[in-house]
């Protein structure tokens, strides 16, 4: 491990970190986060917002977004960012037209020591992000001491110069009263660690109020898929004729 080694910045809670120090995210390095499926893009965005919040409690953050991510998963929504505990006023957003310009902007950010973190979100396979490009990012991060987080959605893990490589998947949240969705939950899988630590998997819940990830015990209460009480249900499609029998009250949708 290098001198700067591990910091308190870690997606894994203390217990998991003791079991596997690999969970620590070194500052002054590049870390990659792959979405398990394209639909997990928002989960990756949320996880990186949370990690950036932990890494930089009050310093500015550069957020570089490939324009295609906006098109596929919607634009970054500041009230939602605030709900995750990160002050949106600290974000400088760069909307990059293509992957090379996203990498260029990310590199500028990685070189800036005053940033708390630089985040790059890319969609799809990136030819421009070869070993040279990722090595350049990693070197810039090491020189300036800035944390560089790279989100990859709809891409397969590639060899790179990243310090760690993770896969993130949305995980069912712990239900609140009346079966309301709870705090954001993620499943982190460590795919690779330069320090040679063993891969592992953590199911974590982001607690905005404490600004940290909490370990998640598997949910004991199974999710209910139907309404609590049977009631009148509208047909599924608004623009197609009702299927025969659908007009009658349906007791259960599943």
């Amino acid at each position, binding site marked *: 491990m290098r001198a700067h080694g591990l910091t308190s910045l870690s997606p894994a809670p203390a217990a998991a970190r003791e079991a596997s120090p690999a969970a620590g995210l070194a500052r002054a390095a590049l870390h990659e986060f792959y979405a398990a499926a394209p639909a997990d893009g*928002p989960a990756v965005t949320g996880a990186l917002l949370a990690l950036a919040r932990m890494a930089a409690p009050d310093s500015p953050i550069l957020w570089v977004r490939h324009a295609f991510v906006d098109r596929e998963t919607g634009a970054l929504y*500041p009230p939602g960012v605030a*709900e995750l505990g990160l002050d*949106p006023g600290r974000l400088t957003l760069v909307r990059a037209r293509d992957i090379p310009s996203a990498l260029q902007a990310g590199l500028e950010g990685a070189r800036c020591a005053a940033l708390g973190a630089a985040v790059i979100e890319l969609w799809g396979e990136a030819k421009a992000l070869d070993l040279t490009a990722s090595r350049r990012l990693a070197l810039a991060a090491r020189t300036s001491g800035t944390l560089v987080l790279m989100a990859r959605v709809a891409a397969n893990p590639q060899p790179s110069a990243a310090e760690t490589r993770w896969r993130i998947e949305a*995980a069912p949240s712990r*239900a609140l009263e009346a079966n309301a969705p709870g705090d954001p939950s993620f499943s982190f899988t460590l795919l690779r660690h330069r320090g040679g630590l063993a891969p592992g998997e953590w199911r974590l819940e982001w607690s905005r*109020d404490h600004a940290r990830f909490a370990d998640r015990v598997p949910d004991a209460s199974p999710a209910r898929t139907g309404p609590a009480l049977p009631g009148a249900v509208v*047909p599924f499609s608004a623009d197609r004729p009702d299927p025969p029998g659908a007009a009658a009250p349906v007791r259960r949708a*599943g």
Partner: protein
Amino acid sequence: MALADARACLPALRVGETDPQADADLLQACATLCEMFTPLVALDGADGVLLDVTGCAHLFGGEEGLRMQARRTLARLGLHTRAVVADTPDAARALARHGAAKVVPPGETAAFVAGLPLAALDLGADTHLALGRAGFRAVGELAERPSQALTARFGAGLATKLARLMGREDIRLTPLRDPPACMAERHFPEPLGAMDSLMAVLERLGREVGAILERRGEGGRLFEASFFRTDGAVRRIVVETAQPLRDAPGLLRLVRLKIDALADPLDPGFGFDALRLAVRRAEPFDQSQADLEGKPDPDGDVAALVDRLVARFGRAQVLRFAARDSHDPLRAAALEPAAAPAAPWPEPDPGQPPSRPVTLFDPPQAIEALAEVPDGPPLRFRWRRVLHDVARAEGPERIAPEWWRVGARPPATRDYYRVENGQGRRFWVFREGFHGEGEGRPRWFLHGLFA
């Protein structure tokens, strides 16, 4: 003369359609090109350009030298020009259009103007005719008359015009573009084409401008580098900074980034004649002091980073979020250029899961949903051809449109639900309107995605 008559006189006559717009464009291009002589350039009618060359002539070998160089420059565009240097804009204009003078020595305007015909007054055909009937032939004859009598007969306009023509009264030009706060320039004896040499010149200009700004205690916010090409084309590279700047290497880095990002590259062609660096906007420069540990101010570093990104990607792509006081989800936030100051954001409710999604679609995306009547959450919905079974849901959060903003037909009230599917993906969906209201069934939309 009619075209048929003209053709009868000269059978080989070439005829072309008038194109006033193209003429105006050409004149504009000439004016831009003339900015290499002085920053104060104004258009004169449809076929003239006025330059205020006060204090500029010595750079071009005197007034005659400047005049010759201006004519040579415009001759490269294929234009035949008449140029006169005189004490006042009106005198120079009248002499160029109606006289034969070249350079009028200071204080001798009256003598040169005296012989001009009445048309040089440019007061309209009626006045010229009336003056002719009164027996006047030249401007000098008018000047000898008492001005009261002329004013009584022909109006105050004549007296004023006469005073300006004779150099007794001076007016300032209204330049096409505001004069810069300060500027520095170089004219090259030979056209210069090599980018490295140009950048070296630009850095020297940057240091000169920086020294001027330092004396004034200012820094530039908006810089403009003008490249005057030998063939008359002028390229301007504009660099805007988030904070006042007067450091030449920093400025040069921004200009380089901007040049690299140009859609059509800076083509040197046969080289550039002149290079000018102008500060279009200057602001007081606060001396920032490093703290006791000698660490530089992080805000300054971030501002410099923003400048580099803006130079590379443009103002519209480097943004900051600004809070807006509105309950309408689409209006609750706005994007602003990153140089703008940040406003505080409201604190989220402690102990509650996020109530707003991390990404938002604008416009919302239509979905097909199956839901309990009247206001139950969706039980399952189809978005982008994928069917999602809802495992958890919360809602509705009823958000009414801001009726004071909308027109005659207000949009329907929306009931928002936070829902989670079996895989743990979280969505923000809404139903537009109520069941049993209006025609058909209320429609469902997906508005955002939660982390």
